[in-house]
């Protein structure tokens, strides 16, 4: 049957065709293609490596950043606590000074008040003496003059 009959000519032609194809691909076409593909594969591998390195560096920078922030926070906390302590000291000092000043002011005010009272008292005595003299003059109908006025006024003041 023709269907299963082997044709040696066609078989040889198949080998020749396949041989030509294989030879041209092997000698001329595949090497440049493979070189080009290899170059790209290397480039991609290199890019992946670089990306990994960049990622690693980025992680390092992030860790460093976190450490710096942590350090800064600690320093800030230290500064704040020291400031608070200083402020407390200053506050205490100010309060102490204020209390001292207040005591001085109170004492001064007391002295001033005493002096004022003395002065007022003297003035009142004088006014009272004058009033009594004037009242006595009216009662006795004569006026005190000279030495007598002075003695009377003094006596009045003393009794008061």
């Amino acid at each position, binding site marked *: 049957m023709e*269907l299963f009959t082997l044709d040696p000519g*066609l078989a040889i032609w*198949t080998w020749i065709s396949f041989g030509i194809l*294989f030879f041209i691909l092997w000698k001329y*076409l595949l090497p440049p293609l493979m070189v080009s593909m290899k170059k790209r594969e290397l480039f991609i591998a290199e890019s992946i490596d670089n990306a990994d390195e960049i990622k690693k560096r980025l992680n390092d920078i992030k860790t460093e950043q976190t450490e710096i922030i942590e350090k800064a926070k600690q320093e800030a906390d230290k500064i704040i606590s020291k400031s608070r302590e200083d402020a407390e000291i200053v506050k205490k000092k100010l309060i102490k000074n204020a209390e001292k000043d207040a005591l001085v002011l109170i004492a001064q005010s007391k002295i001033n008040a005493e002096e004022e009272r003395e002065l007022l008292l003297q003035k009142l005595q004088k006014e009272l003496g004058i009033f009594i003299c004037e009242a006595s003059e009216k009662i006795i109908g004569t006026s005190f003059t000279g030495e007598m006025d002075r003695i009377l006024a003094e006596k009045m003041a003393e009794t008061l």
Partner: protein
Amino acid sequence: MRLLLRFFTMIIPIAFLSASFPAFGAEENLSISETLFKDILNSNELKLFPFIPPLKLPFGVSEHMFMLGLSIFLILILFFRGVKKHSFKPRGIANFVEIIVLFIRDDIVYPVMGEKRGRHWLTFFLSMFIFIFTVNIIGLIPAFKSATGNISVTSAMALIVFILTFAVGFKELGFPGFFKNIYPKGAGPVIGVFVVILEFFGYFIKSIVLSLRLFANMFAGHLAILSFLVLMFVINPFFGFISVPFAVFTYLLEVLIAFLQAFVFTLLSCIFIMMASTPEGE
């Protein structure tokens, strides 16, 4: 997509019918089966266009030889253009060529042979795959013929694999090592020799099966398409409403088979060569 479907549903059946029209005439006095086989089998006349007298090929060149030559020509054009246009970011043909190379390398050769050995064999298996695939596909163009539908072509390809299986086996393991490799461990001399002979025939049968599988698939595919179309002449012209869609479906299936058979042939060849050249247990 719609345009593509229209092409398949209209152009292909018309081309097939036109190509086979004179054969169904009375002048040749052929039966339907004879006409079918005549359309598939090899001949010295090239009938590419319907209603145009067939071209007698010179120097004893047959239609299948012409198809093989055409396939090689098309592959080389494709690869020349692909390699020429190949750049860091390949596009179009260059990208297509690279996809084929990567497919053969990463899905057939490297997984079976490993990277070190595979690198030496890549060109061979790439040539084998692209050769068989192109020859298969060319047969699907209306009025063209598939040379892989001829047992001489598939046998020639299988013979290359058969010879290489032994050549590589002898080279890698040595002549006694090759037979020692297929000699069962712990077996007596009679059984041992019997098994070696069986194994030897095994390689032979594997190659025959390799050849028959490709031939039968391609031949049967074309026969199925033509058979569906012939039903119109045998039963009723209106039967074309059923048989043409079936023929188109089979045609689309044939595209898949063309690829699948090239893949299977290449993969099995790779496995056979690898098996024969690898020491037992490795």
